[in-house]
């Protein structure tokens, strides 16, 4: 008798539990406002990308095409897998001394791990992480490029004598 009772109660409980599960999925069917999918290329205007998102390394230039990089190569030493190459050149200063300045800041976006160690290591705040993210290219060599714009120079620091 007990076995028969267990048989039927197990069937009944099973059916009730199954129906509850169905009710849940059915309720989502009737609530299209809960849909989370965003149609990507069409919603670019309303897309929110947080400003700290690590998309690539970027060297900000001000309106005079000047940057802050002194070619100290600390970022190149900090990068774990060699995605940075600093090429420096020597120029003549007005008073005759030679100074090392940045020629090319070569960045390999294809191998960069976006770990932010270079930004962390820079003593002059020359590079930041930018939140751009659409970088697809057909040719991998286009992922290796210079971060400093052509014709840019180091921003002059105001010394005490000039103030």
């Amino acid at each position: 008798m007990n076995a028969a009772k267990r048989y039927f109660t197990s069937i009944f409980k099973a059916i009730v539990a199954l129906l509850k599960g169905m009710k849940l999925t059915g309720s989502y069917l009737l609530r299209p406002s809960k849909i989370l999918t965003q149609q990507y290329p069409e919603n670019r205007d309303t897309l929110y990308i947080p400003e700290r998102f690590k998309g690539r390394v970027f060297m900000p230039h001000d309106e005079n095409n000047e940057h802050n990089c002194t070619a100290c190569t600390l970022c190149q030493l900090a990068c774990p897998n060699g995605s940075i190459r600093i090429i420096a050149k020597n120029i003549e200063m007005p008073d005759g001394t030679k100074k090392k300045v940045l020629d090319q800041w070569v960045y390999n976006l294809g191998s960069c791990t976006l770990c932010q160690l270079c930004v962390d290591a820079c003593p002059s705040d020359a590079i930041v992480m930018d939140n751009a993210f659409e970088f697809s290219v057909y040719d991998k060599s286009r992922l290796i490029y210079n971060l400093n714009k052509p014709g840019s120079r180091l921003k002059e620091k105001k010394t005490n004598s000039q103030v």
Partner: protein
Amino acid sequence: MENIIGSQIIQSSDDEFIINVGPQHPSTHGVLHLQLKLDGEKIVDLKPFLGYIHRGIEKMSESLNYKQFIYLTSRMDYLSAHINNQACCLAIEKAIQAEVPERARVIRTLMAELARLTSHQLWWGSTGLDMGAVSPFFYAFREREMILEIFEETCGSRLTMNYCVPGGVMNDIHPDFVRKVKQIIKQFRDNLHEYDELLTNNPIFQSRTIGVGYLSREEAISLACTGPVARASGISCDVRKKEPYDAYDRVTFDEIITTEGDCFARYKVRLEEMKQSMNIIEQLIDNIPAGEYRTKIKGIIKPPAGEYYQRVETARGELGIYLVSDGTNKPYRIKFRTPNFSNLGALKPMSLGGKIGDLVAIMASLDLIIPDIDR
């Protein structure tokens, strides 16, 4: 090479046959190659073959300095990436005896518990997927997506954060962090009943997991299983309780231990752990101490020569980092004791005598991440 592998392949008699599961297979959670010897539908022997995603993380770390190798550990157990980074930073701080500000400790703990939540949510979704129910996968990802957006706002990345550095954390938390975390906790608590309705109380799911894949306590100890796998068999092994690190000594939470040791027990342990993680987050989120978020470590990190060991509790078990330093700026040897490697050993005793359908249920309940095994 051929001879070695040939001799390791399972020998079979005429009426049993050998099946290879993987390496490309939808349900092995990564590239795991299993060789099964089947007698009809019953599994008679099982042999895992590893190494398909071995990338040489430990060897690579020997050529990078102490700040640089941390990003590699994010790629080991990528679902608790933050906890792996935290372990490395703790080991290095132990070696150079650096002071970490209180704010950084609390932030690290909060991030670790959020990472544990995301890992368990993904585990829940893929358990449903392995059992055949596709819908739970999407419901799990809805909450996970919100936590990943919090990570994106504060740390900059969603999965491999690289947010912990020796001495603290890389940036301060975003001003919206506290509000958003509270919102998520509230929403997740409201939605937790859906998890029960879809899988836990479902008679089909229960009949596939109750009594399946039994792991006894002695066997779990001898195989060195840790994490929810061991806790479901009755072993108390939570590193957060035994050797508290960061801010775990100032929060109270329960260690979930059951004694049944089958798949359903592991399932319930992980569900309860999610609730405990939410408790920890609620205790810490309102009292983040003000102050510095990082002590800048001057110069190149050069720990004194010696051996250092640090254990943490990832979402899957105990991760141990064994650091051997010879006084230079690059480590001499780093060895990772990963939880998934030991938990994989439990696969064979649990599945012998069962069916292939049980194998899928067991793998789902073990929650293996294969890159963690192969490193």
